[in-house]
């Protein structure tokens, strides 16, 4: 089992660096850590909006939303989401929001 330490907090992660315990371990410090990994300069309100939308949908459905739903709930076109999270909504955004990695050919 891999762990990641950031600013004195340690997180259990899976083979792809996603939080194993999801919401239980998720905090602002984790967001700060993923920000560095994903090469995002600064967390803006837009990033926060995507994170909130992902977490809310996940709480309800137990999976990450399709990208169109994410677009709709945040009001951001897909292109903007990729600008915010260069590695894509399935990888970067889910990782930052503390969701597990999507389990398809994404």
């Amino acid at each position, binding site marked *: 089992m891999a762990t990641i330490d950031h600013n004195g907090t340690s997180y259990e992660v*899976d*083979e*792809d660096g996603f939080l194993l315990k999801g919401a239980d371990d998720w905090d602002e410090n984790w967001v700060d850590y993923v920000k560095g990994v994903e090469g995002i300069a600064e967390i803006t309100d837009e990033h926060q909006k995507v994170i909130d939308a992902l977490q809310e949908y996940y709480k309800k*459905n*137990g*999976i*990450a*939303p*399709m*990208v*169109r*739903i994410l677009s709709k709930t945040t009001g951001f076109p897909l292109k903007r989401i990729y600008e915010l999270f260069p590695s*894509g*909504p*399935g990888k970067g955004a889910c990782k930052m929001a503390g969701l*597990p*990695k*999507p*389990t*398809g*050919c*994404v």
Partner: protein
Amino acid sequence: MVYEVKVNELAEEFGVHRNTIRNWINSGTLPAQEGPGRRYLIQAEDYHRLCDKFGRKPKAFPAAQAINAPAQEQPTPQAPPVPIRLSLSSIHLFPDPALADCCVTCGSCAGACPIAGVDDLDPRKIIRMALLGLEEEILASDWPWKCTLCGRCEESCPANVKILELMRSIRGQRDRAKVPHPIQKGVTTCLEKGNNLGIPKDDFLQLVKGLGTELGETICPGFTTPVDVRGARLLVTVNSKEPFVQPRQLMWWWRIFYAAQESWTLSSENWEGVNWGFYSGDDSSMKTIVERIVDNMERLNCQALLLPECGHAYYATRYGLEKWFPESARKFKIYSIFDLLLEYLTAGRINLDPTIHNKLTTLHDSCNYGRKSLKAFGHGYFSEGRTIVQACCTKFREMIPNSGDSYCCGAGGGAWASPYAAERVFHGREKARQIKASGAKLVVTSCHNCKDQIAHSLAPEFNLEIEVKSLWELVAQALVPAS
């Protein structure tokens, strides 16, 4: 311990004439045997006795020690290796002798394998370990998971060892909790929720209907997405990746069906085409996922099935139909994407304008549609893809080698989703080199994994300035609207 000495060296050491030494040897005063290179072999105790007699410190060194390195000290003895227990009686890993028994360890497979040598991987070792009954070791090894099941090894094997079947069998026997996490989770999600990503039914229906309306209002007047249309001729599956992250990609096929005036339908339930039971070596899950497609065919009273378009999904579904549902396989008309597109083309149901694509174009052969399909089903899709691509573009060039000898993109066998990213990229270096050497600016593939690997991994890693399209995207873009 034996010392190796020369007569004149010994004479010098003891300050006597060399004939004196020879006399001692001949008379038996100094027991010695003739050795190689005019040397004599003297037992240590005899030599030391001689030293004592002359009051000298022993100068010679044991023969075993390198003559050139007399100053070296005796190496510290290492702990003996733990003996490996061979359990030759165990045959769980390969119930069929063709899976390992007939291997002659010639190494052709290792020569053909693009990742042989990575992490000490060598197909021969895996076969040998299976043969020797090293079950625990081989099941714990990551080798069978770093292999992309591309089948180049098997194609080059003169003994016809079924290496892929062995590899899947080893994957299948690993404790499910130890299967690479993303793969196993994909399988369980698919079994529980009907598709790999767990997309809820309502979300899916809303998406495909919305996309259909969009298409109907623009390029294809009057189009609506057919879902659960009973009696439609053709059942079409969906790769869950597309609704999840690339919904617009779904529309390429829909545009082709619209042009060909096909009677087709999606299913609202269990519409997944992806079958990761194939990757995890889990036949029972693989069968369940194929069975769902058969059930949808029956439920919707369809006559024909378009096998899922991704390479592994085509192979897994066709394999599953032939193995577990042979009656259905005979009853329904089964199309691969190549069969269907060619049928449309030759029957004049679609017309294509090749001048749409003017870049130099090449075709990447998917291992599952080509080499592996040839071996498993007696037909590999090589020429079909070329006919279709050349009907859609003006300039075509082959990669070398191609068809049955084509290199894997590196992302097969579940590697696109597995955690072994570095191995996956390394594996793809051959494909990247081939693409570069072809000079092509447009690479066409018939598999989602190949496409993603080439476009999102190989292109940036190996500085390829290319565009990558799926075959159906190429076709849809070249469609000439019916007048």
